């Protein structure tokens, strides 16, 4: 598995995701946003968390139009894997690689806490190391994670089984309390039509070491590296 982590001005989680990928056995290179091509042999393009361009205009809006995003789009069109975490998810939505938009959290607060997620399917390149309906313990840290799309788009995503993760309680139940940013249908992450692009607000890369409180994030990187 060769992964390219695309770094924008204001990205700040690129080292963490690179570390999580290396722990899973991947080769990782960083790619500056002005590059017009990904390194030859790239299997996975990663858009890390952070605050690209200081969240100016809209979260992910300016990064979504960067030169490197044309290369990421071409990679995705060839069936290549793309993972966007937090700001990376916002960039994927702004760039048109995933539908919908991440709006301001419904409670108007920056939320930063441990978060349980329900794994909606375990038959994708991103989740094969998990079980369907498994509840995993990761982290969230964002001010704009409130997933929104028009009713037709939501119906299409749901109908095509493209929800990757949902905010849930310890029993895997989707409660209002567990969905603190107010996302429609408790959506925490979605796939593209061909299931080769995944965007999610939570940070699986935070929880890959017992030392920092959990290892439930490992499954995502292990799935990718498998």
């Amino acid at each position: 598995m060769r992964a390219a982590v695309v770094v924008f001005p204001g990205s700040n989680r690129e080292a963490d995701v690179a570390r999580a990928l290396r722990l899973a056995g991947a080769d990782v290179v960083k790619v500056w946003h002005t590059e017009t091509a990904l390194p030859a042999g790239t299997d996975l393009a990663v858009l890390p968390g952070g605050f690209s361009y200081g969240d100016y205009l809209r979260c992910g809006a300016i990064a979504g139009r960067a030169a490197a995003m044309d290369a990421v789009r071409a990679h995705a069109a060839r069936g290549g894997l793309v993972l966007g975490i937090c700001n990376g998810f916002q960039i994927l939505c702004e760039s048109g690689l995933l539908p919908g938009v991440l709006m301001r959290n419904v409670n108007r607060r920056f939320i930063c806490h441990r978060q349980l997620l329900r794994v909606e399917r375990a038959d994708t390149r991103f989740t094969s190391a998990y079980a369907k309906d498994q509840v995993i313990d990761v982290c969230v840290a964002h001010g704009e994670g409130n997933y929104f799309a028009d009713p037709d788009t939501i119906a299409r995503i749901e109908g095509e089984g493209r929800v990757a993760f949902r905010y849930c309680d310890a029993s895997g139940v989707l409660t209002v309390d567990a969905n603190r940013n107010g996302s429609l249908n408790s959506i925490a992450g979605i796939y593209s039509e061909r299931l080769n692009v995944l965007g999610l607000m939570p940070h699986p890369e935070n929880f890959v070491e017992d030392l920092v409180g959990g290892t439930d994030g490992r499954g995502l990187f292990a799935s990718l590296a498998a």
Partner: protein
Amino acid sequence: MKARITVTLKNGVLDPQGKAIEAALGSFGLGGIGGVRQGKVFDIELHGSDKDAAEATLRQACDKLLANTVVEDYAIEIA
């Protein structure tokens, strides 16, 4: 020429910032305010004097970057 682009949230899209501003205005005891929606204004300087061409350019600017048309509408005024 100068142009002003106004970007606003579509009807029905939740606006937590507008709600917070509405609540703050309410706390001043200002009466008669029924609702607040927050938007953005872009003031743009244009070269040339062809209004139609300018409007076409500005539409592209809005569609490509200034507005996210999933949740936002825009209006263009050219002075």
